[in-house]
């Protein structure tokens, strides 16, 4: 097999698009919190890019995709990507793209998954504890789960992940990314507890245009996520691309339709949330269903998630930005949907679902995939969260939380408030520290 320039170009471009999803997520989440915690919310995503990228080139790629012969975990050792520069990718089949392109693409998935969790613990997480959590969580949860789902085995047909080997159809990460992050978010918000004033104080989004920018960036980047998962510039990528588009469009409409019926007004937050719900649900399904079915999926998941986000008020857990209601629920809906609507008519390499004469077999496998990842992620995250909470502490003091985490954890504020236009009042009495002031004078002199 020789390298395909077209395939390689697409996978590299798709990787960059998937990277953009994490800053997009930072905007999406950042706009949804109160103005006193927007920087911390965005920083949780940005620091995750930093931490996970380093761990990935160190050992993460090896734990996820290294050839150990095990179906549970890859090779425990260094990634050694430097020695694979001239190799082409093999993952259940040969792909004419460099291993490093595949490794870069998969890195972006490893980055965004823990970043998704941050929405569940907004406004109150100690920044150091978050960094420690991310480093350990990707190591013991994401890397192994990625092996289960995304590793289809080496050339000698060994070492495929156990869910991949069972035939779980998860094209781009409904289980490994979304259910995984959603279940972890649930565990972590239970460990940290509710925000001060939850269900009492208004905690409305401080900047909805920011939320919409974030949703737009996520939507764009998601074409890389889903269509890029074909690992080539081909018909499968085009199918995933089209399904991603229409399911997301339908997700927008499904969510705001539910709002119109229930609350009387279709909201912009609902439209942004519906887009993300549609994207989440089509992630596992995009290469296995027909575009008309993707429309059905989008409408269904938009409406289901619009209802699911209300659960936290009924059950009393403070999943602040609805990681559970959107990513876990949306991921489950998408995974199970393949069991009904998956069809050989669009992808002959995979199985027929219930509605195409395949019986309950595929549905059962999909449920196994969804719920085993959910259970593993929830339990391990719960234990890890409790350990971090007991040792270095996971939560900032309630005084700091009330004052605003941006100020107490980062010594910054996001906005220069005041309508008097840069005068003495707008800075709130801000002045340069003397050492800096002296320095400024020297420069200007």
């Amino acid at each position, binding site marked *: 097999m020789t390298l395909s320039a077209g395939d390689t170009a697409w996978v590299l471009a798709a990787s960059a698009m998937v990277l953009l999803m994490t800053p997009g997520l930072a905007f999406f989440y950042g706009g949804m919190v109160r103005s006193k915690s927007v920087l911390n919310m965005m920083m949780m995503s940005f620091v995750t890019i930093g931490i996970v990228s380093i761990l990935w080139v160190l050992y993460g790629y090896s734990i996820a995709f290294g050839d150990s012969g095990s179906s549970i975990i890859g090779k425990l050792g260094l990634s050694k990507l430097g020695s694979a520069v001239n190799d082409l990718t093999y993952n259940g089949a040969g792909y004419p793209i460099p291993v490093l392109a595949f490794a870069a693409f998969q890195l972006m998935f490893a980055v965004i998954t823990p970043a998704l969790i941050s929405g569940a613990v907004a406004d109150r997480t100690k920044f150091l504890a978050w960094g420690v959590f991310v480093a350990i969580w990707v190591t013991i949860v994401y890397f192994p789960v990625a092996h289960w789902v995304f590793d289809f085995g080496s050339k000698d047909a060994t070492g495929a992940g156990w869910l991949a080997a069972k035939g779980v159809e998860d094209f781009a990460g409904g289980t490994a990314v979304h259910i995984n992050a959603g279940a972890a978010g649930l565990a972590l918000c239970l460990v940290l507890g509710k925000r001060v004033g939850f269900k009492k104080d208004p905690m*409305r*989004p401080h900047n909805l245009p920011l939320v919409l920018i974030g949703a737009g960036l996520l939507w764009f980047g998601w074409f890389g996520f889903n269509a890029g998962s074909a690992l080539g510039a081909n018909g499968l990528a085009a199918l995933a691309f089209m399904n991603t588009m229409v399911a997301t469009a339908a997700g927008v409409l499904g969510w705001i339709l539910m709002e119109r019926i229930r*609350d009387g*007004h279709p909201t912009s*937050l*609902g439209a942004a949330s519906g887009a993300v719900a549609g994207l989440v649900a089509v992630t596992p399904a995009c290469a296995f269903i027909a575009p008309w079915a993707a429309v059905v999926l989008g409408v269904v998941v938009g409406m289901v998630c619009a209802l699911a*986000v*209300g659960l936290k*008020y009924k059950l009393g857990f403070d999943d602040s930005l609805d990681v559970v209601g959107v990513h876990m629920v949306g991921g489950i809906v998408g995974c199970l949907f393949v069991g009904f609507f998956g069809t050989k008519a669009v992808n002959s390499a995979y199985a027929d679902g219930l509605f195409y004469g395949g019986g309950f077999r595929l549905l059962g496998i999909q449920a196994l995939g969804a719920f085993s990842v959910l259970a593993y992620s929830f339990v391990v995250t719960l234990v890890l969260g409790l350990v971090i909470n007991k040792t270095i502490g996971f939560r900032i003091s309630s005084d700091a939380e009330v004052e605003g985490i941006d100020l107490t954890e980062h010594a910054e504020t996001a906005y220069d408030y005041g309508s008097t236009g840069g005068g003495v009042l707008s800075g709130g009495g801000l002045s340069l520290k003397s050492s800096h002031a002296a320095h400024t004078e020297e420069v200007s002199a």
Partner: protein
Amino acid sequence: MKLVTAIIKPFKLDDVKTALESFGVHGMTVSEASGYGRQRGHTEVYRGAEYTVDLVPKVRLEVLVDDADVDDVMDVVVKSAQTGRIGDGKVWSVPVDAVIRVRTGERGPEAL
């Protein structure tokens, strides 16, 4: 001298300003304010969670006037700010003991 203070709907500010200028009032102080009277607040819904927002955005406008002009000025404000719908605001006046123009040091009505 009197201080006339008006709380009005923000979108009425231009009308009130124009009306006061043509009446001959040559200065005012405007600030953003929020509050409620009989209008109360409104309800906002975010992902199904309802929030009651008590405080409605308003504009607070202050004018210093001579005793002789106070009734006319208040009438001008009321006429130009009125929509007839709930939430139009209020206008009141209070007596002012002393006024000094900072630039010249003039005192009393000359400083207006």
